[in-house]
């Protein structure tokens, strides 16, 4: 299992488009994928779940992946956050 804390660096925060990107990326992998924000833990493959976090600019999330391809999953998702989901 890999846990990784990540900060939201795109100004608009986790709105519909980035949420969709994350879910689509996570669906390609076989590992379990969860995102944790304070006391909320959601399934990273659920679009409503990811949007429910209402993660704003500057907030921190914890990515939790568990499975055979966990490393690759975390790597791809982390890259998306760092690239600000192609925004700005």
């Amino acid at each position, binding site marked *: 299992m890999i846990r990784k804390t990540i900060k939201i660096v795109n100004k608009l925060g986790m709105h519909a488009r980035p949420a969709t990107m994350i879910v689509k990326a996570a*669906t390609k992998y076989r590992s379990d994928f969860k995102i944790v924000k304070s*006391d*909320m833990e*959601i*399934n990273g493959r*659920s679009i*409503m*779940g990811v949007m*429910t976090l209402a993660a704003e600019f500057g907030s921190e999330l914890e990515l939790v992946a568990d499975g055979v391809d966990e490393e690759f999953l975390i790597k791809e998702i982390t890259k998306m956050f760092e690239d600000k989901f192609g925004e700005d």
Partner: protein
Amino acid sequence: MKKLSVKELYELKKKDLSLSLITHPNTMQGDITTSFLNRPGLALTGYFERFDYNRIQILGETEISFLQSLDEETLYNNIKETLVYDIPAIIITKGLSVPKQIEFLANEMKIPIFTSRLSTDKLFNSLRIFLQTVFAETKTIHGTLIDVFGVGILLTGKSGIGKSECALELVERGQRLITDDVVKITSKDDILVGSSTNNYGHFMEVRGIGLIDVAKMFGIQAVRIKKRIDVQIELMPWKDNMDYERIGLSNNFVDVLGNKIPIIYLPISPGKNIAVIIEVVAMNHISKLFGYDAAREYTTKLQEELKRKAMIREKKNKEKKQ
């Protein structure tokens, strides 16, 4: 551990509990860490064994009249000894007035005193209910909550197995959606209550279509804000060698926030109408509450017949021998 600052309590419940602060505002600096309340009774007499000082202390008519009966020196000493403890707040009920020394000492020791116009019983009740909500354990899980004939059914299962679609069909059949995809569960007084994590409304994602608004589409009768969770149904892909429940005599339970709720593992295969099965689960649950258990009923009848047949056989055998 969860906590609530005394300031927050005052701001949130000032009106409902008709509270007013009689000590200096800077006395409000502590935190409330438990939903329990305490009536200090014996502590005021100087007995401090098992004194639950970390709870909010409630002083009613009994305590106040006791304090008034004391001579000034005893009163001063007893109160001083009591206030040495790190008490989050003291509430005096029925709008009773407080002996001046107490107010003076509380200001000195930085312990806030409130008066409330409510009776002790009323204050106790509403404050307890409020604090229980604040300190209730919560967790969010991936699933869909739907009210089926008044039974709160929590649908769980892997992403894409069809929870939302199933909920949609149930809604079309007249059942009510509480929340889709993310359920916030609160445990209060051994009851699990599920609700949405936000107040955006009853939105749902249907794969291939996108987001839909269930309340707008199916009307207000198709939704609910919150519901007690009675049964969990885990949807899973059909597996040939999996051991599914066939009779229904043994019940499986799952632990959610320390509460046990029945869980049903429901295999899904093409051509199966899951919505109808879920309604059947709900009706079966209700009928069990009414004391009728179909599985038990059937097996009892079967056992009786087996017994009767065995007796006849025995009789015949005896006749043959004679």
